[in-house]
């Protein structure tokens, strides 16, 4: 077992569907506060990789390998006990709950009522949306919703953060700001963060190690700062 250094480690990960390997032999260390990027064409299994890490992968996929988080092997742990937060393309704020209730849903159980209220208020202040507790999430703008979704994830006190193309649906002007907001918070809290994306700008902004998944499932690694990665043409559609 590794040391409790806060890192996220993937070891020998192989993802296959119906006997066809999508990802072969991926190993990766993400240090606390670092944002690693996985790039690859659609259907390359990169989103599957994230759902496997958070523990909710479709059983149709056959996956081998090991996940270590902060020195613990969490490969067989149930999702709610892994302490891995995830953000999707859509913010997925629960439409039946108010903004405050959405945030409170993330706070671990056992935290007292007063303290919960305070944490929600603090999170809203941090998202520059103070006093939004009773608002209907459907009345928020895209950027506001994205910030609330991140704060909700952070309130659950994760030890790692997974980002499944969370910026791709935002318009260009907003994308930069939300991306900054998410990366800054993840770095500030020292979370190892794994980003899956098509967008080379995302990878450049992440400024961490980049992995590219090729057509045969082979994984090509590049260290941080080796210039903008090139997305392969073949198989992007």
């Amino acid at each position, binding site marked *: 077992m590794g040391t409790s250094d806060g890192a996220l480690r993937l070891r020998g990960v192989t993802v296959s569907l119906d006997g066809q390997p999508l990802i072969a032999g991926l190993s990766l260390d993400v240090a606390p506060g670092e944002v690693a990027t996985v790039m690859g064409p659609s259907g390359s299994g990169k989103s599957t990789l994230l759902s496997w890490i*958070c*523990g909710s992968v479709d059983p149709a996929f056959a996956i081998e390998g090991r996940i270590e988080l902060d020195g613990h092997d969490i490969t067989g742990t149930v*999702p709610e006990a892994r302490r891995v937060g995830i953000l999707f393309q859509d913010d997925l704020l629960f439409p*039946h709950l108010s903004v405050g209730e959405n945030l409170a*849903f993330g706070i671990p*159980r056992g935290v007292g009522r007063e303290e919960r209220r305070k944490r929600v208020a603090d999170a809203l202040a941090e998202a520059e949306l103070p006093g939004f507790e009773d608002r*209907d999430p*459907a009345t928020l703008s895209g950027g506001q919703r994205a910030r609330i979704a991140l704060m909700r994830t952070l309130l659950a006190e994760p030890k790692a953060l997974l980002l499944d193309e969370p910026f791709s649906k935002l318009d260009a002007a907003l994308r930069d700001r939300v991306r900054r907001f998410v990366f800054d918070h993840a770095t500030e809290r020292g979370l190892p963060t794994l980003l899956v994306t098509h967008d080379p700008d995302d990878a450049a902004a992440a400024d961490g190690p980049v992995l590219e998944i090729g057509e045969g499932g082979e994984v090509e690694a590049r260290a941080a700062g080796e210039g903008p990665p090139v997305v392969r043409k073949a198989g992007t559609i």
Partner: protein
Amino acid sequence: MLRWFPALTLVLFLGPVAAGLVGTWAPAFGYLPSLGGSGFSLDPWRQLLAEPGLGKSLALSLGTGFAATLISLAIVLGFLASCHGRRPVVLVRKLLAPLLAVPHVAVAIGFAFLASPSGWAARLVSPWLTGWDRPPDIATAPDPLGIALVCGLVLKEVPFLLLITLGALGQAPVDRTLAIARSLGYGPATAWAKTVLPLVWPQIRLPVFAVLAFSLSVVDMALVLAPGTPPPLAPRILRWFNDPELGRHFLAAAGASLQFLLVAGSIAVLYGGERLAARLGRRWIAAGGRGRSGRASRRAGMGAMLLVFAIGLAGILGMAIWSLARRWRWPDALPSAWTGDNWMRQAGALAWPGWTTVTVAVAAALIAIALVLGCLENEQRNGVTPGSRVLWLIYAPLLAPQIGFLFGVQVLFISAGLDGSWVALVWGHLLFVLPYVFLALADPWRRLDERYARTARCLGAAPDRVFWRIKLPMLLRPVLFALAVGFAVSVGEYLPTVFAGGGRFATLTTEAVSLASGGDRRVIGVYSFLQALLPWIGFMLAIGVPAWFYRQRRGMKVFAA
């Protein structure tokens, strides 16, 4: 624990159906020890074949059953093909729920109120057009050929088929398909029939079979609208079962088995017809005829559908008016004196059947929703993907004729010491409530974006918490709607009440049926209107409660469709 739900559900709901079939077929061959039948014999069948007018009963059943099914299907498909994407579809969609909610018996009674010699229809055209200054002496509802029964069935089955077809259309890429066909020069109705119908037919097939099975074996509507000498097979079998001479039970069981064969054979015939139609249809499609602009067919399709809705709604209105009439002389179009006395006077008599109706319906609907939710949740948590065969199992109680197995269910309840109990009554209703609740809830439940549940789990919520705090509240509206569907189905059940209740329980439906033949119209109006009103209240609550509850949540409107 969740893993046991599918098995429990199947046992609770298919167990009695299977046991009921056995318990009906055995006495049909002379085996029913409690009535002294201990050996195998063909006597019941000989007795059955010797019944006078059996052929006529069979012909009546077959004729009305097929006519009602094919006419209903033609009206629904004709309407949708000719009016796709137009205003009438929007209008009919809005009027669908109230008509769908009305129990069969209430529809039948409402139609009888309209079409009988002294009914509304005759009143509106008399005496100025017809010259009748008294109700004419002709048999209209019921009539000797069963036309009134066919009309009543069509009024009830068109809304059901329409609901199913609209649901299927919602899941297919209809607009794009039509746009392509139209751009290739096909007329609107032809384009629909050649490209959209083949897309949605697989989802409509089973419901159509269920409609045929129901129409061939309907009892409650037939008691109101079908001729009595002889009646169609199903009500005749009920008469034999109710015969005080217990030996007639063997005859009745043979009749019930014959009814089962009749339905099975008819479904096979319809299936063969479908194959043939598909083959001919393929040739028709390949021939490339473009069809016309379709104005005439649009008028016909729209006219037929609106007529169905107008008659159905007028029947309900007629019942309401009768229940408030003090004096309503022939040929006045409306009562000359109104009163609430009919309701006041019946209040005492209504209380007990009304209470039974509501409590049984609530219990059956709640049990059904719990079982269905358990099965659907198990499906998602344990990654079980049910095949299309499961759908056949769910339709089983709707495809087998009720009269063909309910006697056996009663025998089962007697041997379990449950007969005539409230539990048996609820159980009997559950057999028919469960399929509808499942059909109403399965799609919306499976369609919920599973990433909500994943997000919630990654936020630290265990599966149970995700179910109670996320899925159930998000799907509150479809869940309550399914509950209302189950409630409405139970309120309308006639035969399960008669058999499982062992004759000890009266509901609004059984009271309405027994009053319908010859009672005071004002009293019948009270019973059948109340019977129609209960499901409406259920649906209004199912729509109103979540709307009020989530009035501050705009994002929940998506889940209201």
